[in-house]
Each structure stands twice: as C-alpha cells, then as structure tokens.
C-alpha cells in the first residue's frame, strides 16, 4: 500500500505542479501580449513576470519529474527526499515571511498553505521507497526525526496567529519623522501635483470631498 500511495502522491502532485507551471507561463505571455489582455491573474511588479516565467519552468520540470517517479517509484527515492525538503523549505519561507510581515514575500497566497506543504512533506518522508537492502533501524530513526522537525514547524505555523508573533508588516499610525507637517487639525498646504493626464491637481481642487492622500515610492498592485 505505501508504494501505491507514493505513486498516487507523486502523480497528483506532479500533475498539479505541471498545471501551475502552465498557468504561470500563460500569465507571462498574457503580460507580454501586445496591448495587454486585461488584469493580471497574479499581482506582479515590473520585474515580477520574469520571476513568473522562471517559477513556471521550475514547476513544469519538477512536476514532470514527479510524474516520472509515479511510473518508476523504486528509482525515485532521491526525488522523494528532495521534494520533502523543498516542501519544508517552502513552508519555512512562508512562516518567516509571516513573522517578518513581508508582504512582498507573502504575495497573495494564504499563510495556511505552509501547513499543506508540511503535511505533504511528512507523506513524502514516510512513503518514499527505502533501499531494498537497508536495515529498518536507522531509516526509521531518520524519518522519525524528520517528522518531529516538520511537526514542530506545523505547530509553530498554527500557533502564530494566536501568539501575536508575526504580521509585523502592518502597524498602527505613527509620526516618527520630526520634519513632517502639518499636524492634526491643521489645513493641508496647497501644493501642485500633476496627474497621469498631465493636468494640475491641488488639494484645494478636492474640497467638499473626503480625501485620502498617500505618498508612495511606487504603485504596483
């Protein structure tokens, strides 16, 4: 049964990775199509589409290898180990991104996906075929230690929201720049801005409406 489960796991994950890779490729070409084809499927920065193309290639390559492993599981021990390690690293990356609150790293995906990666990693640790001639002892100990580490990460992942650790990327309003003015209750100075159409835009043009005025390095949703 474990061998059969390993085959099914490799086939499903390999197919999913190939599909994800194809979606990423489609996104890359969608972004580069003459005139554009509308709103991107994924939020991407000016350089993000190159990352998308690279990630798409990696997904298709790894997915293809996993499909190959489903056909010849006895030759795929190393791939099973590598997949488990990659899944744990992906989960760790997500957990760290959550802790430091880096939304550029988190992207649009849910933090809970880390838990899925870790559970899949445990499956790979235990289901991948062992060496036929190897004794049972050390392998079981190694797999148990790997599982303990993964379960510890899983516990951390689940505990994060309730501990208050993480998501430091969002903070309360603050004023830690001494030169900044005006203060609360003071009128906004009437400076001139230039909008995308080349027209002048002043705060006084917006009187009678409530305004959220925000200064950004760049706008890239």
């Amino acid at each position, binding site marked *: 049964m474990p061998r059969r489960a390993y085959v099914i796991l490799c086939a499903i994950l390999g197919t999913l990775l190939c599909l994800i890779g194809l979606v990423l490729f489609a996104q890359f070409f969608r972004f580069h199509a003459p005139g554009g084809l*509308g709103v991107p499927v994924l939020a991407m920065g000016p350089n993000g589409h190159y990352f998308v193309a690279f990630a798409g290639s990696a997904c298709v390559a790894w997915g293809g290898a996993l499909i190959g492993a489903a056909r010849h599981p006895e030759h795929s021990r190393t791939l099973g180990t590598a997949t488990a390690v990659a899944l744990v690293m992906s989960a760790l990356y997500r957990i760290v991104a959550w802790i430091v609150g880096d939304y550029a790293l988190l992207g649009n995906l849910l933090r809970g996906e880390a838990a899925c990666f870790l559970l899949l990693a445990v499956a790979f640790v235990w289901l991948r075929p062992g060496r036929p001639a190897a004794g049972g002892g050390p392998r079981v100990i190694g797999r148990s230690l790997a599982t303990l580490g993964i379960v510890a990460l899983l516990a951390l992942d689940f505990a994060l929201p309730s501990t208050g650790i993480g998501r430091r990327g969002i903070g309360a309003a603050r*004023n830690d720049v001494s030169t900044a003015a005006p203060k609360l209750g003071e009128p906004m100075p009437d400076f001139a*801005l230039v909008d995308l159409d080349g027209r002048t835009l002043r*705060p006084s043009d917006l009187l009678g*409406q409530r*305004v*959220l005025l925000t200064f950004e390095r*760049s*706008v890239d949703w």
Partner: protein
Amino acid sequence: MELRQALAKEPDLVVVYVMASNQVNAKTVRFVDELGLRDRIRFARDEDSAAIDSLGLRKQDAESIEAGVPHPASYVLDREGVVRFVDVREDFHIWLDPDEVLQVLATLP
C-alpha cells in the same frame, strides 16, 4: 472587487497616490479604469518635490537613487481640507493598518 466594495461604502472619498515620478504600473491603471474608479483613485507625480518639501517628507539622508522619494505618509483630509489623520513613518516595510483609516473616515461628517 474588494477595492470597489470598499469605495462603495465611502461614496465621496477620493484617494490620491503621490509619487516622485509616474511610477505606476500600466496594469494598475487599467485595473482602476476597468472598475470605473479613475475619478476616485488619482495617481499624481510630485514634480520638483514641491509637495514633499512643503510637508517635510523629504528624506534627509537619501541615497541618490532615492532622490525625491518621500517618507511613506498618509493623510486623511475632511471636506474643508483639514488634516484629520496623519501617518508618517521612517520604515516603509511597516504598512499602515487600513482599518485605522476606515475608523477615522467613519468619524468624519
């Protein structure tokens, strides 16, 4: 859709994004256009850094690549143009909690 729903709850709110230059992704502009929000989400550049100087937002120790890049700042203005909320921060890695802005807007007439 979330953006459109959020603005639907604040029918007279205008959001103005100010940048040192037109560093706006064309896809972002198209997205705003498709939602029909071009009049309510405005993108503007601060030529000659006049705005950030008048607001004291210019970085004092900026590297040359950051010339004209302000400290991240957000202001909520009422209908008379009076500042009702200020957030100016050194660290651009920490984002302002949007719920705080919504709470301030709810208190404005």
